[in-house]
């Protein structure tokens, strides 16, 4: 094979791969939207907002409890995981002795690799009984789901923050030190602002991951589709709703579940776009 032909073959296979990936996204979006459409036509978008409850078998399709449930557990997880992840990244890049640094990095990567159902099981047999015993029974709650999710998104947050901090040229830190700034002041006033956009990207993607997580949340959130009034109330998330009911849903119920899937996709897409934009701006100095 001539070099030119090999080049063309390579280019062809790369293009096929890219096209296949892009087409998969288009097909999935189209399919979910197509399946969700009948629900919108039959009930109208308003029904999802205003119906008082989620009882598809009785014809009420209120999705608001699930939307709020998803937001509540994800926000709680983000509030818990963001400072921890950022702290871990700062420690790894500026305070950890070199021996510890590699070990720490491996540990965080391992944390990212554990399947979500394992976290869910841990939450169910350890965390939920603890909450039930010391705070309020039955323990399956926003708090339990938020804690489990926080551990799950911690690696995302830590790895992105670490990458952002690591990408700052070493001269900046040295220059700050040469000016007599203490380590903490240098971090706070020079390095963290410089890494800000990368850290924002980590935040958006962590949030998207928390929103999309299903199995672990399903096991510890209690799954009652209601408007929560405290952190100890059970809630149902949009994703758990799909996992719980899809296998047995028919007709309007099924279409309504596709609509909730469409919502999750739309929000995730928005978050990923925001993450992409903050990354792009960072690239321009």
């Amino acid at each position, binding site marked *: 094979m001539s070099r030119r032909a090999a080049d063309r073959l390579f280019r*062809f296979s790369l*293009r*096929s791969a890219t*096209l296949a990936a892009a087409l998969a996204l288009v097909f999935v979006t189209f399919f979910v939207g197509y399946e969700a459409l009948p629900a919108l036509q039959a009930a109208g978008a308003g029904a999802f907002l205003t119906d008082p*409850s989620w*009882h*598809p*078998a*009785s014809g*009420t399709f209120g999705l608001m409890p699930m939307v709020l449930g998803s937001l509540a557990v994800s926000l709680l997880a983000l509030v818990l995981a963001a400072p921890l992840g950022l702290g871990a990244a700062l420690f790894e890049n500026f305070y950890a002795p070199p021996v510890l640094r590699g070990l720490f990095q491996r540990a965080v990567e391992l944390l990212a690799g554990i399947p979500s159902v394992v976290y869910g099981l841990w939450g*169910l*047999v350890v965390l*939920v*009984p603890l909450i*039930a015993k010391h705070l309020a*029974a*039955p*323990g*399956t709650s926003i708090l339990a789901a938020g804690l489990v999710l926080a551990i799950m998104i911690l690696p995302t947050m830590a790895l992105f923050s670490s990458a952002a901090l690591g990408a700052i040229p070493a001269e900046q830190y040295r220059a700050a030190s040469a000016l007599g700034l203490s380590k903490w002041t240098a971090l706070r006033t020079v390095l963290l602002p410089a890494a800000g956009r990368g850290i924002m990207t980590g935040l958006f993607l962590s949030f998207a991951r928390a929103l999309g997580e299903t199995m672990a949340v*399903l*096991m510890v959130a*209690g*799954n*009652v*589709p*209601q408007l929560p009034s405290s952190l100890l109330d*059970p809630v*149902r998330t949009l994703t758990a709703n799909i*996992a*719980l*009911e899809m*296998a*047995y*849903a*028919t007709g309007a*119920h099924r279409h309504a579940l596709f609509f909730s899937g469409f919502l999750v996709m739309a929000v995730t897409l928005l978050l990923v776009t925001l993450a992409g934009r903050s990354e792009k701006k960072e690239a321009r100095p």
Partner: protein
Amino acid sequence: MTARTLTFLAALAAAAAAIFFSLNSSSEDIEKARLSLTGSSTIAPLALEIAKRYEAQNEGLRIDVETGGSSRGMADARRGLADIGMVSRRLKAEESDLTAHLLARDGVGIIVHSSNPIEAITGAEVTSIYKRETRNWQALGGPDADIILVHKAEGRSTLEVFLDHFKLDNPSITPDVIVGDNEQGIKTVAANPAGIGYVSIGTAEVAIENGAAIKLIKLDGIEASTATVADGSFPMARELNLVTYGEIPENAASFIAFAQSADVNDLIKGQSFVPPRR
């Protein structure tokens, strides 16, 4: 769009078409006798298992199993769209144009935590608990603890059996925890000393054997066990039927005979249903 991109897209389409047709032709190569089942999604997984075993014994037969609910099963059998319908309840009087072939029984039992002293409960007490009129176990002679209601997600067959038996309206129930499958229900009650729930009796028996911290309690004085479900005495139970319309073709009749034989008992138990007394 450049000519090169067009060529590329055409090549891609051609490749996709080639794959599609090659898959299609390979499955059409061998002409097989077919048998089709449609209906209840509760029965479908069991029917699929039975069909697999039957196919292995009868070379040259292909059995298709599709879901769509008991009503679809009956409609398809009547219109001849399916050879056999799957219906997860006893046929009503006005459905006597169909012939029911009992495949298995599905019993739903009330479970509580194993530390709960309560051994029996009445239907009226269950209704009162799920309507939140009885809120504390003390009212039933149990410990002083708020009852934790474990409920099933919409669409689950155990939920249907439960609501139907107690004539409860789902939107009126405000549970503490909603679970998906039986296993999750058992784990949730096992983790809550004040919990109450309802699960498939077959699954609960297996879990109790394996040391789960739950127990099945008597309902209206009748022991909740696979034995009482099998002989039809346990009240919260239903039939899983295969239904046919009119004359039964030869291969459908022999499949039904196989599905009603003791050869499939292990498969029925595997799906946490109960084989009927044969």
